[in-house]
């Protein structure tokens, strides 16, 4: 392991590391544009120049490997001058249109100009004009004048998505980033190019002109789009929602997790928040009347429901539950306990047969679009799609009096009329979910559930890694997390489930099931925790309904 000196600090670094990586280890942040730890190294932007003793010229820190005894300065007069000059070149043709640029506030041209630039511009010549506001794909818009030709986005498309849409055409100061003629930037991971673009050249169409980034709050969480469980940041805008048509979630951004998604997320997951503040959110409990749904108070809704449950149980009728692997570990645990206590069983299916095979690949996007299938499995829920089919058949035969459906859209993929007939045979169908859809339209009672950005809890991803969700927003309207709905209902039914927050639920789970043994919800690390498989398997057996 070579020993080197950086800014008078002596450190030992792994052989083969570059200076920028070694400096990072020592807590020294060398400026960079083209360097990105998730991509190959090209050394084209020159902002990372450092002075190395014994070398006549400044060297790029991103490309130069460390060598035994190397003495590096990242702060010398020459380095500072060089950074100034590099910035002046990078900005020579830049339109400086920060006031109308979405990147402002998180732009590395602004950042480094304020840190290292602050020069008097000497350029007298006219600036080159390039293409502005070019829609390059379904989600991305390009301003070629702002581009500093760092090639990060090109390398992303070559190395990560491997779709090769972007290139740099022409040369000198006419060089311009563009997609291949006739080709759109529409790979399933396209918006990562926006994340890694250090300037405002690539921006998001969805986020365009919605809000200034400095008004955003950030909450670390986990994507609920599929069983991969990519780590995300939820960026919320709660003070100025009028700027964004009432939307509180401004955007999702990837959050680094070495075990799962590294620096990336897929586009489908990125826009998986659009339902959160959509017009069709269910915000109040409601009961079907002859002429549509009538809003009712939680108290009245749960009272009615409790009576229905008691009536059914008294008459020896059966109650069916269709759960969902969109629900957190905590929601599912409470559902299981609730069902055991009040519904007479815990044989609960959570997976619906998909009506068409969804896109998936061997990078991130998983065929299973549920974030918590493993969690459901560990808790003893049935993840075979046969479960829901059987439940619906039982409804058809008139065997189910009361049916609870969590989240699932029962519509597409069934013969027309099949669901209507099944529901018609049940005395009551209760839908617990966040948005109006095919199931809610046919249900007798609606109970509004919070979305995953509005709750705390955990998911277990496809590898058995448990990860914590954090609440970024207050539940919309009167919606509540599912565990709270069930807890409140249990209070009316007597024999109440006593939980006050997801941490309590998790603690009970950890005390009773080997896979979660010794864990606490609030101590789950930022990058999650791999549940021990043997314990997890043991628990799957223990959790099997007896």
């Amino acid at each position, binding site marked *: 392991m070579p020993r080197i000196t950086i800014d008078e600090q002596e450190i030992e670094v792994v052989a083969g590391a570059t200076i920028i990586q070694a400096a990072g280890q020592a807590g020294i942040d060398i400026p960079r544009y083209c360097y990105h730890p998730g991509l190959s190294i090209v050394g084209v932007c020159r902002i990372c120049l450092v002075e190395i003793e014994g070398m006549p010229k400044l060297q790029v820190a991103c490309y130069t490997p460390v060598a035994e005894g190397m003495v590096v300065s990242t702060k010398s007069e020459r380095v500072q001058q060089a950074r100034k000059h590099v910035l002046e070149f990078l900005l020579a043709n830049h339109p400086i249109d920060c006031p109308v640029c979405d990147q402002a506030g998180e732009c590395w041209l602004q950042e480094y100009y304020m840190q290292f630039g602050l020069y008097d511009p000497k350029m007298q010549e006219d600036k080159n004009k390039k293409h502005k506001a070019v829609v390059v794909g379904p989600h991305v818009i390009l301003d070629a004048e702002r581009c500093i030709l760092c090639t990060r986005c090109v390398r992303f498309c*070559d190395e990560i998505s491997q779709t*090769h*849409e*972007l*290139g*740099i*055409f*022409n*040369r000198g100061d006419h060089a311009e980033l563009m997609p*291949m*003629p006739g*080709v759109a930037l529409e790979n399933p991971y396209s918006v990562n190019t926006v994340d890694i673009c250090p300037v405002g050249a690539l921006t998001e169409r969805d986020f365009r002109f919605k809000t200034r980034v400095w008004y955003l709050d950030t909450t670390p969480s986990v994507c609920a789009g599929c069983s991969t469980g990519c780590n995300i940041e939820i960026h919320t805008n709660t003070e100025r929602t009028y700027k964004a048509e009432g939307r509180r979630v401004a955007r999702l951004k990837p959050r680094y997790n070495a075990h799962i998604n590294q620096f990336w997320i897929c586009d489908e997951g990125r826009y998986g928040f659009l339902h959160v503040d959509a017009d069709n959110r269910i915000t109040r409990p409601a009961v079907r009347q002859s002429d549509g749904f009538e809003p009712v108070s939680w108290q009245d809704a749960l009272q009615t429901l409790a009576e229905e449950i008691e009536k059914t149980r008294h008459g020896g009728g059966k109650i069916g539950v269709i759960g969902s692997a969109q629900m957190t570990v905590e929601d599912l645990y409470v559902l299981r306990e609730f069902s055991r206590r009040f519904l007479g069983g815990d044989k609960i299916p959570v997976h619906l047969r998909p009506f068409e095979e969804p896109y998936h690949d061997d990078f991130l996007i998983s065929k299973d679009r549920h974030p918590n299938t493993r969690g459901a499995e560990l808790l003893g829920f049935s993840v075979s799609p046969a479960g829901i089919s059987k439940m619906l058949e039982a409804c058809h035969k008139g065997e189910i009096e009361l049916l609870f459906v969590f989240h699932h859209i029962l519509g597409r993929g069934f013969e027309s009329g099949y669901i209507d007939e099944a529901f018609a045979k049940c005395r009551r169908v209760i839908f617990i979910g966040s948005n109006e859809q095919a199931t809610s339209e046919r249900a007798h009672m609606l109970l509004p559930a919070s979305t995953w950005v509005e709750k705390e809890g955990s998911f277990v991803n496809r590898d058995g890694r448990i990860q914590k969700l954090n609440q970024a927003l207050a539940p919309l309207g009167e919606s509540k997390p599912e565990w709270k709905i069930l807890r409140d209902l249990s209070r009316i039914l007597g024999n109440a489930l006593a939980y006050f927050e997801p941490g309590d639920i998790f603690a009970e789970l950890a005390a009773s099931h080997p896979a979660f043994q010794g864990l606490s919800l609030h101590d789950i690390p930022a990058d999650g925790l791999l549940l021990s498989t043997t314990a997890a398997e043991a628990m799957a057996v223990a959790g099997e309904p007896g």
Partner: protein
Amino acid sequence: MSFSLSEQTEAKIDQVMQRYPEKRAATLPILHLIQEEKGWISDEAQNYVAQRVEVPPIKIREVLSFYTLLHTRKIGKFHFQVCRTVACTLRGGKSILQHLEKKLGIKSGETSADGMFTLTEVECLAACEIAPMLQLNDDYIGPLTPEKLDELIDGLK
């Protein structure tokens, strides 16, 4: 449209490819060989090269856009490249260009409808001693006067 090359060019490309351990490195020589045969590089040619050197077509397109010597549009049988840099300009390069535009009936950057002539302006061709000059296909010609130009063009017809 299918793309094919003469056997000779194919053979030359095979030969060139053997010179480089990295296939990609053969890009430029192959492009030159194709241009020699076809006069320009069409989209089909670009895709063919991409296949030969095993890179996505966009990488060839980047190269083509970098080098002005590689033509991505069909050019005339006679290509006039008029120098527009200092020495030639001082010695009347501008009027040479204007004369050519009039005589050929096309503007700089255009190709005549009959596909005979293409006119472009280029930077210093390192033949300042014969300024004002132009390059006609592979030949340097200068110092030029309008009369000499007339003679030259009439000789081509």
